[in-house]
């Protein structure tokens, strides 16, 4: 494949990836920092996400109100996401207005204020965000499953953090976290869209090169020991609906097994895009689990999720139990279906079908500059941009035997946590 992007590293260690795309008069820029919820010890859970919120609260040069106003006036969008492994900030703007976004990112890499009053009001905003999450049964269940799956590895807590830490962390804690991780040699800027590479590079150099490098922040290195057996847990809460979250320890994003797991997921639970926005998925009504569970009226819906994490994380199935069935009945049928894919190799046509689905999902994502730009940097967080560019070819190399082996290796009972949400039957009353 002809190389359609360029890579550069500034003297301060900031890595730059640029890709010209001239289909629309737009540019999308993403700054990625290698910091996320897996960098948080107990007592500081949720700090990376809260710091991300504070990055919208202004610098001396761009006070909070003017920041927002200037970008919106220019018709741009800006946003940020905190994940377990990274935190990213994006702006997508009309091409002739992009400079504002770049200046803003250079500035807030070092100059954010973390004003005491803003910290206080954002504390309750983040607590409110967590309360909104707690309204969702699948959040409550997922949180319990995650912490049961990771006793040692810092993937054990939710990105939003625990309420007790959100109540107790101070402005100094937040600012310290910011200053430790927000340095050019811990970051990547990826820009895609309607620009000339030489001009964009010169401008980025001008804006970002004066920012001094810092000591490379260490990451918590606490690999999860192999589980000694299956964990089962229950969560009780309001509603009438039962859910299952069945999560297996899974390979990291850059593990060669990841490709086989991706195809396996397409076959079992349906094709889904790897896009961080989660969009672009297809229906999954011909997937093996849909046919075994929903068509057999054991469940009313299901989905599978596999994430491109730096360290091994989870391959999770969420299942909504049919009102007239029990979670135990669903789990039994689920296990039968897993056994089937472990016992006999899948048909070659099933694999080629999964490849075609992935090809279509890639085409849908490439309608959109923001999505294309996201991959430039996102893939660098756990592998390299090359990972993204060769993804379809690697999928095409997956054989029925690879899929069977992956199912045997990862979808073992001893390798999983089974969480059940049990509704306590409290009904809404008008």
């Amino acid at each position, binding site marked *: 494949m002809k190389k359609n992007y360029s890579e550069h590293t500034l003297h301060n260690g900031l890595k730059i990836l640029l890709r010209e795309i001239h289909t629309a008069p737009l540019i999308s820029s993403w700054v990625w920092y290698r910091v996320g919820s897996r960098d948080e010890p107990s007592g500081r859970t949720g700090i990376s996400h809260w710091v991300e919120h504070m990055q919208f609260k202004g610098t001396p040069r761009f006070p909070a109100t003017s920041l927002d106003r200037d970008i919106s006036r220019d018709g741009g*969008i800006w946003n940020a996401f905190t994940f377990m492994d990274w935190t990213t900030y994006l702006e997508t703007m009309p091409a002739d207005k992009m400079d504002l976004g770049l200046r803003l990112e250079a500035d807030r890499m070092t100059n954010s204020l973390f004003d005491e009053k803003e910290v206080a009001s954002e504390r309750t905003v983040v607590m409110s965000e967590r309360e909104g999450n*707690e309204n969702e049964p699948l959040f409550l269940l997922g949180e319990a499953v995650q912490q049961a799956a990771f006793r040692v590895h810092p993937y054990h807590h939710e990105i939003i953090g625990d309420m007790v830490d959100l109540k107790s962390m101070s402005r100094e804690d937040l600012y310290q976290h910011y200053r430790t991780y927000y340095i050019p040699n811990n970051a990547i800027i990826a820009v895609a869209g*309607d620009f000339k590479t030489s001009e964009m590079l010169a401008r980025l150099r001008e804006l970002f090169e004066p920012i001094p490098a810092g000591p490379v922040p260490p990451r918590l290195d606490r690999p999860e020991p192999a589980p000694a057996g299956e964990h089962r847990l229950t969560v009780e809460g309001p509603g009438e609906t039962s859910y299952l979250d069945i999560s297996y320890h899974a390979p990291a994003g850059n593990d060669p097994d990841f490709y086989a797991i991706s195809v396996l997921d397409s076959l079992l639970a349906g094709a889904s895009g790897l896009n961080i926005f989660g969009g672009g998925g297809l229906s999954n009504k011909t997937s093996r689990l849909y046919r075994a569970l*929903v068509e057999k009226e054991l469940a009313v819906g299901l989905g599978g999720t596999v994430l491109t994490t730096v360290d091994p994380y989870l391959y999770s199935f969420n299942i909504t139990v049919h009102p007239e069935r029990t979670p135990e009945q669903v789990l039994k049928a689920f296990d039968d279906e897993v056994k089937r894919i472990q016992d006999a190799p899948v048909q070659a046509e099933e694999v080629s079908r999964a490849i075609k689905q992935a090809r279509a999902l890639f085409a849908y994502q490439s*309608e959109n500059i923001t999505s294309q730009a996201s991959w430039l940097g996102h893939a660098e967080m756990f592998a390299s941009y090359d990972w993204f560019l060769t993804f379809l070819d690697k999928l095409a190399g997956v054989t029925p035997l690879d899929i069977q082996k992956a199912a045997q290796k990862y979808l073992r009972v001893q390798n999983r946590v089974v969480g059940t949400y049990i509704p306590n039957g409290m009904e809404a009353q008008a």
Partner: protein
Amino acid sequence: MSKHQDSLPGPDDITRVTIPNGITILARANFSSPSVVIGGHLACGSLFDTDEKSGLADFTSLSLMRGTETRDFQQIFDALESAGAALSVGAGAHNTGFSGRSLSEDLPLLLGLLADVLRHPTFPAEQIERLRAQFLSSLAQRAQDTAEVASITFDQIVFKGHPYSRPEDGWPETIRAIQRDDLAAFHRQYYGARGMVIAVVGAIEPKTAVEQVVEILGDWSNAEQVELPDLPPLRPLKKVVTRKVKIQGKSQSDLIVGAAGPHRKDPDYIADTLGNSALGQFGLGGRIGNVVREKSGLAYYASSTLNAGIGPGSWAVSAGVNPANVQKAQKLIIDEIERFVEDGVTSEELEDSQSNFIGRMPLSLESNSGVANALLNIERYDLGLDYFRRYPEMVRAVTPEQVLAAARKYLDPQRLAIAIAGP
């Protein structure tokens, strides 16, 4: 920077054809990715529902893909999913809408499936019962969703006595009451080519797109097809009406404060949307976001929304807050609405939103689905094929006085609907 002068859709690059059976076809090419989207609607919806069988239009639309004269459920989805294509159908008040996407090489397949499910559904009994259980489960989940319950409650207050007061997906008892024959009858009486609109956008020449649609839908006709009923008038609120729905065990409450809003075709629509932007959209949520989220830290989300369609719309402020803060948030919101209808917006605020509306056009029209939705709006509301070319001028022409008049026309602090759902 290269120039893309003609990137906004206009009469020179939108194809619009109405064929003899009454279907209007819209198409626009975009070869930047090898994919294509379709979108559109039929002239039937939940306005045909009765109170006893509310949800019938929606249930019918969801049943279409459960089996046709030549394909069963698994065959329909096998054809779609094998191609990495997607198709879904759902009902609104006035329309039954559909949307789909595929690689452009698979457009004939996608259109063929669309035509098949619209024209030849068989409503197989076993599939209908399975779908009913799924439908009932989603309604049980809806009853636990504070934002959805607040929204339904808000509509019940604002649209009391009007068909818009019914949720399109009905209620558990009405979904249980609907028989298989009701679905088949709904399809027979109300589905047809007359009034159907379809947009095809993506890596396909418009001429080819039109030919493909004509080939599979050109001979569709339904002599029985019934016209949509006229909307009854909406009785405006005479005082503040507050309703709270209790949902036990939740950590957060949802709050909606507002009133009935404009029709999409009202001449003041653009002034209304600019006012709404200043009130609760611009940047991180306009004045509402500033007061409720930024200054007082009460909510993770707080904004205002203007919904405008064929009939009367709604204009409302919503927020998700801790149950202990509902009163406080409600007061802040009502104070802002009072200030808004008293003083309107400053010329600076208006200019901010005008600039945003014009500046964001390339981004909103970037993807095929963005363009398809734009074409469907043009058609549904008679906006004219040159709408997006004229739009910047229309936005710039709005004055603060027009925004104030629009605000006062719809929002009256003495006649608000207030809906709360939470513990």
